[in-house]
């Protein structure tokens, strides 16, 4: 079985790859970034791809770009690369490999996991503390298109009946641009309008439906109070998701706003 492991911690991932190759006779390759992984996926075919969600060096350098952007969403491009970029690229291949998500259970990855489950139909998950045997079980399950979820990750998967994120967060093209402006740090209608090229009235009108939809995702949220504050703090906490390259490709916003 040909396996591609995408993980940025070279020393740890190298050791895991070595053990997977020795102990389970897999043909294992390691890619340190989603870009590297996408290149390899384009060159040869794999049975399973094991993907980490966030890449610290990439996120840290992108965060500087995010904090500097204040005038237009175009300043945020190209967006941050995460494991979703590999899943997205793999899904476009003629013979897409099965996928395993290999992640730590941190809340800033929660939206990535829900999207991977809903959009890319990933059903195999293992945690960063998993043993090599556990990772191998996840790989085997993914290859056989069976479900395998590490007990430490299971709580992060979408609850039964949860509406698709594509509807809840990105149902309207205007919302997509607004979410990105908020994730970039905008806390005012005026700045959001400037960044998205929508007028302030449009931004104000979007606040209420966006907050109502968000409350279906997280019932803790009160959609009737301080909508701008609620939405901006949510977007900033999940900026790695809202400013993700794959999320942008799946749910593009209008680049010209109301001037279109």
């Amino acid at each position, binding site marked *: 079985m040909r396996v591609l492991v995408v993980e940025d911690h070279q020393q740890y991932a190298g050791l895991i790859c070595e053990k997977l190759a020795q102990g389970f006779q897999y043909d294992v390759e390691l890619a340190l970034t989603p870009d590297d992984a996408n290149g390899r996926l384009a060159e040869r075919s794999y049975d399973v791809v094991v993907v980490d969600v966030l890449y610290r060096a990439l996120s840290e350098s992108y965060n500087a770009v995010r904090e500097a952007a204040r005038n237009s969403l175009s300043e945020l491009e190209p967006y941050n690369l995460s494991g979703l970029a590999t899943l997205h690229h793999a899904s476009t291949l003629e013979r897409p490999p099965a996928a395993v998500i290999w992640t730590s259970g941190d809340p800033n990855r929660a939206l990535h996991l829900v999207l991977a489950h809903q959009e890319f139909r990933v059903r195999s998950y293992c945690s960063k503390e998993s043993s090599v045997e556990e990772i191998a079980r996840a790989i085997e399950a993914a290859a056989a298109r069976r479900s395998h979820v590490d*007990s430490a990750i299971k*709580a992060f998967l979408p609850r039964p009946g949860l509406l698709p994120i594509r509807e809840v967060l990105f149902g309207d093209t205007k919302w997509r641009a607004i979410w990105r402006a908020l994730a970039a740090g905008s806390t005012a209608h005026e700045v959001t309008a400037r960044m998205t090229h929508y007028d302030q009235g449009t931004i104000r009108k979007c606040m209420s439906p966006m907050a109502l939809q968000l409350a279906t995702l997280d019932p*803790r949220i009160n959609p009737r*109070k301080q909508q701008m504050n609620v939405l901006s703090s949510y977007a900033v906490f999940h900026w790695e998701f809202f400013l993700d390259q794959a999320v942008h490709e799946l749910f593009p916003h209008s680049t010209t706003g109301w001037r279109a």
Partner: protein
Amino acid sequence: MEVFDSMAEALSPSSRAPVPLNAVMTRTTIRSLVGRVESVAFVIQAFAIFSTINADKLSHNEQTFMIGFAVLHLVVGAVTVRFGGPFYRGSFWPLLWFAPVFSMPVMMAAFVPPGDYGISPVCPQLCGYPVSPVAIAAFYPWIGNQYKPISLWIKGAIAAAIALEPLIVMRVVNGTITSYNVRGTLAQAIMVGGMWAAGEAIGRICRRAAASQAELLRKEYDRQFGYLHSDIETGLRLAEMGYRDHRPDQVVQALKELSTAVLEERMRLSVAQQYVSVAEVIGLHIRRIRQVVSVQAIPRVDVMTVAQPTGALLSRALGDLLKNSITHGAASVWIDFRVSAGLVHLEVADDAPPFPPRAADDPTGSLFKLREALRRAGGDLILEASTSESERKAAQVTIPTTPHGWAGRG
């Protein structure tokens, strides 16, 4: 050995810059507070000018000039909203703002008919113009740290100069000082002095608030430092020594303790946020117990969060109930979670022997303490009665989504 060294280096406080806990933090906080307040100050100045145009005897050209001047203030106020005001921007901008403040008495003395400047005992013409910039100057810490001991004197001297300048202008322009001039100037001095005192007082409140925040952060840094030193570095050194001495058992034990210390810290931090991820809380508790008990059911809660006090109680309840299950010999546990009607419901079931009668009524027991804490917050703990040894028994916890005594909303 490189592994131990790189781990220790990565965990050292110097590897990532922490938030500075000094005057810089205080200034940054106040700078963010002053933001749009400066634009309001410009609007107040514009209103003062409009009021003078309405009340004082000015020629058509002078009125036109003053209208333009007032509009300029409104425009600057609007620009300030977007780009920040003079004190926010620093450099020469505050001087540019104060130049017209000092020029205004001279200008008004030139505009009004000879002998009219300061004629009213209420206050001199355009006496309201300097009050808002004076308040901002008193509030904002624009004086460098090296002059901090005399900053009060510097600010006070500027306020005094602004307050008394009209009297000097009256003396020069009118050639004499009347009792009306003195009373009017005194009225302006009271107004300027009052605004200066208000700005200074608000500034002090803000500085004290920022300093309290810094103190809290400093305590947290101390705790983090203690954690890194006593738990992490010691654990790493133990593992290193075990490796050097060819004692694999010691290495394994040290690494296990390290893992536990990291997990405990993560659990502590997971409930320190304003909003707590339910999935993270459940995931961390499962990581802690899954080596000793089989977790048969785990709720999927994706991105659901709860308010911090609810999250802290949820984590405590889950930890206590899972510990209780393990202590009583459970081989399997089932966890359920849901939110409805303003309440968080947590259920932990296990296959251990049934709860003894009145298990939660023993004041020395953890279940009693947990139930008391839950009741204080407006929730409860109910231990399901079970008659059969083989039957699953469950403990049900309810916590309000907004616990009693919590002010946070949203």
